[in-house]
């Protein structure tokens, strides 16, 4: 009940901000269109990169939105006030996770649908699986964003966490250099970064008609990373502060 009210409250806040909604929905689609122009005449390259980007964009966008939104709860005093009410930490964390997860589902569906039907992105597997993995990625962005907001005092600092958290994952996920060709220590880092698994899962959908065991395992790793980030996020939320 409290969780549902919190989800509704966060979605209502989003509804009052049409510019943000437009950015959430339009920006990934525009960027993927840009990719399709860049790789005109090289459909195989476009397919591979666009597929990866369908996993990366929701992650980045949701990380940013969530870390700022949660930071605002902390700095405007609403978080302190909520902690004098029956709201639980998990109501808040899952409230943000579900509300922004829904927004991310719309984003991923629009971007993947557009890439598939308008830009001719080809995947051996189902486009529905692409959307599923993209949504899992977005929720990962939400969970890490909630966690990162605990370490930022200001919105300036919060946006700086985006390159810190997102850039290494993007560089090491296998898009630029295949993971098996990386130096051992880079591979080891890549192995502990959750985005590596979502990119691998997407690649699996790209080349196999049916969902593979590797894809399901990778998806499970991403979901586990979400749970770990939410638990750590809950640990950083303190009812009492100095």
């Amino acid at each position, binding site marked *: 009940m409290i969780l549902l009210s919190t989800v509704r*409250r966060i979605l209502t*806040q989003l509804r009052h901000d049409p510019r943000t909604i437009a950015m959430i929905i339009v920006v990934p689609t525009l960027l993927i269109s840009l990719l399709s122009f860049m790789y005109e005449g090289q459909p195989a390259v476009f397919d591979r990169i666009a597929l990866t980007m369908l996993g990366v964009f929701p992650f980045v966008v949701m990380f940013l939105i969530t870390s700022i939104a949660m930071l605002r709860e902390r700095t*405007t005093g*609403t978080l302190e*006030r909520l902690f*004098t009410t*029956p709201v639980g930490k998990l109501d808040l964390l899952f409230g943000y996770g579900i509300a922004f997860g829904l927004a991310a589902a719309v984003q991923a569906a629009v971007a993947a649908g557009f890439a598939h039907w308008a830009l001719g992105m080809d995947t051996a597997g189902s486009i529905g699986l692409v959307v599923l993995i993209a949504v899992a990625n977005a929720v990962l962005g939400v969970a890490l964003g909630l966690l990162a907001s605990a370490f930022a005092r200001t919105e300036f600092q919060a946006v700086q966490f985006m390159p810190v958290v997102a850039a290494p994952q993007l560089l090491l996920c296998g898009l630029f250099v295949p993971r098996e060709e990386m130096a051992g220590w880079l591979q080891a880092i890549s192995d502990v970064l959750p985005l590596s698994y979502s990119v691998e899962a997407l690649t699996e959908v790209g080349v196999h008609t049916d969902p593979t065991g590797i894809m399901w395992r990778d998806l499970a790793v991403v979901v586990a990373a979400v749970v770990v980030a939410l638990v750590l996020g809950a640990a950083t939320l303190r009812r*009492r*502060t100095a």
Partner: protein
Amino acid sequence: MSTAIEVENLVVRRGKRAVLDGFFCAVPQGSVTGLLGPSGSGKTTLMRAIVGVQTVVSGRVTVLGHPAGSVPLRRRIGYVTQAPSVYADLTVAENARYFAALHRLTAADADGAVDAVGLSGHAGQLVANLSGGQRSRASLACAIVSRPEVLVLDEPTVGQDPVLRDELWGHFRRLAADGATVLVSSHVMDEANRCDRLLLIRDGALIADDTPEAVKRSAGTGDLDQAFLTLIKRQELAAA
């Protein structure tokens, strides 16, 4: 009259400074108690400790017989922070309805609270577009919507025009008449006369804990501002 809030030997540090150092006070149930003192005297810290969001070093804070901040109190207490803590990107009504929902109350309850703070004409407006005084009333509406037994208000009348301030005090008095315990901080002394009891606090120490009449009588003046000064001087002399 029983005690609603009891603070015993409370110690709170912020950084290296002890904001409250062995603080005692008691607030009777069903009263309007004013927490008066200059800026930086520890009013907000004391209020945060009472609602259970302040990290305390030692001491005991009991509210309605429960330790401050404990689960059963979260349905029975209302807190209004000094800076209005409402969602700027929601309308007044949406804010009140969210806080109502947290207490399993309906939209009608929420609208009643908005009406009680005189904002029904602005219910559909985004909080971001309101004036400072209207924002703090929106914040107040979100606290009174649950009809809390203990209402802790940190400077709720700052920036309000005199007519509204009068109405708000009337509202606090009605809540107290219905049995609620209202603790209001202020640094405006003329508001202190409208309280049942006063807690005068300076540099984290309690200087007086009495009715406004008794405070004035003991200082030998009819003016509360003057009484406050006299009590501070008397305390400094006693300490010297």
